């Protein structure tokens, strides 16, 4: 067991931390300046931003207020007009409710009916009533109407009966017949009509005509129409007075009929302001009422904003009539390039709907509002400068506040920065000294808690650094010593094992060194392994060498044998091929034989049929012969009967001859008288002799016939026997043929099986040939390979020899 190695210090190196740090940060400002630079903006910037935002928000609110005021006033103007129209319509309602008026209307209608005035033309009627312009002159009603005009501040009032003919009026009208007038027709159909504002010279004011239909309260029967002209002056002047009190200075309001660009009312405060500015209190003799008159003058006044604003007003009227939607209106207004800050909305107050638009055009803010129940639009205008100036006064307030606060903050921050930075500056000087290498310095503990902690910690840190540096020095020394030991161990190890490089495998590394014993063991393991391998290689190579020498001859023989074998195989292949061809020929012959046997079989089948025919013919012949024999027998029997008849005739002829002789004898006794008789007897005797002769001839003929018949019978019998014999022979022949047929059938089968066998044999022989071909190829390859093997064995032997000499370099221990 080796002793434990001492831990040795490595060589210490001089630290280069002593360089002055301050030199590296020349461009960086000190703490006081940094505090001022970083905190001042942090305080002043939010202050400035807060002031700016405050100013901005307040200014915007002031501007919005101005615009909202304008919008409210515009709406108010439109409401005022609305109220005016309502009041006016109520006035006509009041007149229509008067029973005197209704009575007069009914009476007039009665008169028209009676006089059939309704059928007459308008011209005729105008002519007829040109003087009075009234159907019936009733001063009481006319007076009543005139009184209403006076008290109700009306311009005029009159009414017609149901055919549109004047009944009564406050002032004479230009026409008598009113039914052709638009307002009259609208009133008759829709119940009421509001005419367009017109400037009436007699009333010296804008007059609006209100008409309404009068109906019977019970029957709802149409009775006539009342028309009243109402000057708008009073309500407008009220409006103007009201608006003046509503901070509407610098604003201008108009009530406009967009259809004919008619300015119904114009209230202008812009001049007032200018005037007041010019006067500056020196000459204020003119009263506000004078301005009122000025600003309410509608003569030669044009619509503010001109065509563009009129177009907007028209669009709003269309929206109110539901001709276009809000979205479409918004789009069509937005098309005008010179418009900006457009807002369009609708407001529903009670049952009435108003469209309100606000937009900026040519540095002016326009507010438009529709007047309910009419085609009028109220327009309010204010200069954008007025809006903008609303926030100006706020700017100075915010600016001054910001400045005071900023200055206060600046002073405070400078003071604080001074307080904070002083102890730190001192501490920083101490650290600089330490950094330059003086580790014996102590920092003063003073200032705030943080700076005190910092100084204290700094002192501790310096102490620790000092200790750490000393430790490091010791450690470095130890490491250096260790390194030297390790180097020595490595030299020893190299020295011990270096011989292995020259093939000496008997070397061993010592395991003395604690650090290198593992490496030494590794070397030992490797060298051991190498030694084993070398020994094995030596043994193997010598074995290979000797066994190669032993086997070389055998292998050569083997190669020769393989070549011979290949040749034999080739010969066999040729024989097999020949055999295969023979088998092919046999197959073909067998096929032909089969064909021939087939033909033979067919022939035999035909012969058997012919044989059958022959047998039948013979049997027929036999029958015919039998019948002929029977007929011959009958012929024999007939000739027997003939010979019996002939012998009878012969007897007769004999007796006749005796009679003739007796007669001759008798005739001869009779002498001369018997002479003739004798001649006759003699002739009869001759005849009988002739007859006897003929009979004898017949008998001989019959005998001859019988003899021939006998012969024929005999011949017949022998023929019959022959036929029978022949039949028997034919039958036997037939049987033999049958046998032949059977055999030939068997032969046929045999032949076809032979044919099949030869075909399969031919195939097999082909396969055998192929197989043999392969074997031949194989044996060819084998012979080649064995040649190569022989060659390579020779080469291997050479390699083994080389290897043996190479391994011989290794020096191994004896024990192996």
């Amino acid at each position: 067991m080796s002793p434990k190695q001492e831990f040795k210090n490595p060589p210490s190196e001089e630290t280069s931390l002593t360089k002055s740090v301050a030199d590296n940060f020349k461009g960086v400002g000190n703490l006081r300046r940094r505090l001022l630079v970083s905190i001042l903006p942090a305080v002043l910037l939010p202050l400035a931003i807060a002031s700016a935002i405050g100013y901005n928000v307040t200014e915007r609110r002031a501007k919005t207020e101005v615009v909202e005021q304008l919008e409210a006033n515009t709406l108010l103007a439109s409401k005022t007009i609305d109220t005016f129209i309502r009041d006016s319509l109520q006035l006509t309602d009041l007149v229509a409710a008067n029973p005197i008026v209704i009575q007069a209307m009914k009476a007039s209608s009665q008169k028209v009916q009676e006089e059939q005035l309704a059928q007459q033309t308008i011209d005729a009627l105008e002519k007829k009533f040109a003087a009075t312009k009234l159907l019936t002159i009733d001063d009481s009603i006319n007076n009543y109407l005139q009184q209403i005009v006076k008290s109700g501040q009306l311009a005029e009032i009159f009414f017609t009966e149901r055919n549109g003919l004047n009944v009564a009026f406050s002032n004479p009208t230009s026409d008598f017949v009113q039914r052709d007038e638009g307002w009259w027709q609208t009133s008759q159909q829709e119940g009421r009509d509001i005419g367009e504002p017109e400037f009436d010279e007699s009333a010296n004011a804008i007059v609006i005509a209100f008409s309404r239909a009068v109906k019977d309260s019970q029957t709802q029967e149409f009775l006539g129409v009342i028309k009243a002209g109402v000057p708008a002056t009073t309500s407008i002047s009220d409006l103007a007075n009201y608006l003046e009190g509503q901070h509407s200075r610098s604003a201008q309001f108009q009530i406009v009929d967009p259809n004919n660009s008619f300015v119904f009312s114009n209230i202008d405060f812009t001049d007032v302001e200018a005037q007041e500015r010019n006067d500056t209190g020196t000459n204020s003799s003119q009263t506000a009422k004078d301005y009122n008159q000025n600003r309410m003058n509608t003569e030669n006044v044009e619509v503010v904003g001109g065509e563009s604003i009129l177009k907007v007003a028209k669009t709003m009227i269309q929206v109110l009539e539901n001709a276009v939607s809000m979205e479409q209106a918004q789009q069509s207004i937005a098309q005008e390039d010179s418009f900006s800050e457009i807002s369009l909305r609708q407001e529903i107050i009670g049952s009435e709907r108003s469209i309100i638009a606000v937009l900026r055009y040519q540095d002016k803010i326009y507010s438009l509002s529709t007047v309910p129940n009419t085609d009028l639009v109220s327009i309010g205008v204010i200069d954008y400068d007025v809006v903008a100036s609303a926030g100006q006064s706020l700017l100075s307030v915010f600016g001054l506040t910001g400045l005071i606060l900023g200055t206060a903050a600046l002073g405070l921050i400078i003071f604080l920065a001074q307080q904070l930075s002083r102890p730190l500056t001192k501490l920083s000087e101490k650290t600089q000294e330490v950094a330059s290498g003086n580790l014996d310095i102590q920092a003063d503990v003073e200032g705030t808690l943080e700076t005190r902690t910092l100084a204290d910690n700094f002192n501790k840190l310096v102490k620790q650094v000092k200790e750490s540096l000393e430790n490091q020095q010791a450690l470095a020394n130890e490491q250096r010593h260790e390194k030297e030991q390790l180097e020595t161990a490595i030299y020893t190890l190299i020295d011990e094992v270096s011989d292995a490089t020259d093939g000496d495998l008997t070397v061993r590394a010592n395991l003395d060194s604690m650090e290198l014993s593992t490496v030494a063991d590794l070397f030992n393991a490797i060298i051991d392994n190498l030694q084993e391998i070398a020994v094995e290689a030596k043994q193997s190579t010598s074995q290979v060498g000797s066994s190669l020498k032993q086997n070389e001859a055998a292998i050569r023989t083997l190669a020769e044998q393989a070549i011979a074998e290949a040749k034999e195989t080739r010969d066999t292949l040729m024989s097999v091929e020949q055999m295969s061809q023979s088998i092919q020929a046999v197959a073909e012959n067998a096929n032909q034989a089969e064909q021939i046997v087939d033909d033979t079989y067919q022939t035999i089948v035909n012969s058997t049929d012919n044989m059958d025919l022959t047998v039948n013919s013979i049997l027929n012949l036999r029958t015919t012969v039998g019948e002929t024999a029977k007929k011959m027998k009958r012929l024999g029997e007939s000739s027997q009967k003939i010979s019996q008849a002939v012998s009878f005739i012969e007897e007769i002829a004999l007796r006749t001859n005796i009679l003739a002789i007796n007669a001759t004898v008798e005739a001869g006794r009779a002498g001369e008288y018997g002479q003739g008789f004798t001649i006759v007897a003699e002739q009869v005797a001759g005849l009988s002799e002739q007859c006897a002769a003929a009979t004898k001839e017949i008998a001989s003929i019959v005998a001859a016939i019988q003899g021939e018949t006998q012969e024929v019978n005999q011949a017949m019998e022998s023929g019959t026997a022959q036929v029978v014999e022949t039949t028997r022979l034919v039958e036997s022949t037939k049987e033999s043929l049958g046998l032949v047929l059977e055999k030939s059938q068997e032969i046929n089968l045999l032949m076809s099986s032979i044919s099949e066998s030869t075909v399969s044999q031919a195939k097999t022989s082909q396969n055998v040939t192929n197989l043999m071909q392969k074997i031949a190829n194989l044996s060819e390859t084998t012979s080649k390979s064995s040649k190569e093997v022989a060659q390579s064995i020779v080469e291997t032997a050479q390699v083994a020899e080389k290897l043996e000499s190479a391994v011989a370099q290794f020096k191994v221990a004896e024990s192996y």
Partner: protein
Amino acid sequence: MKTILIVDDLQSELDLMATYLTKAGYKIILATNGEEALAKTLEKKPDAIVTDWMMPKMGGLDICRKLKKNPETAEIPIVACTAKNRDVDRLWAKKQGVTAYVTKPCTQEQLVSALQEAMG
């Protein structure tokens, strides 16, 4: 009773380990070098071997390699007891067939525990 072969070139170490293992109830065989250790292993067939690493001529791992090559002794568990205490040492020892590893100086418990670990 299990038989343990202890191999070390220092007699003092041998004695110490022998005391430990006898106390723990093992039968002890001793060897002071590699040759002797191999011979005694073949002869006595111990159940386990505790060997020092750094010995002259034949080290502990040499013994280990030789025993592993012989099928008769290949299965015998081997405990390396050595002052070498680096990860690379333990790794190499394990690669060479050492079953358990204990560093010197060791207590009886450490040695017995390593031995038991080696014998499974």
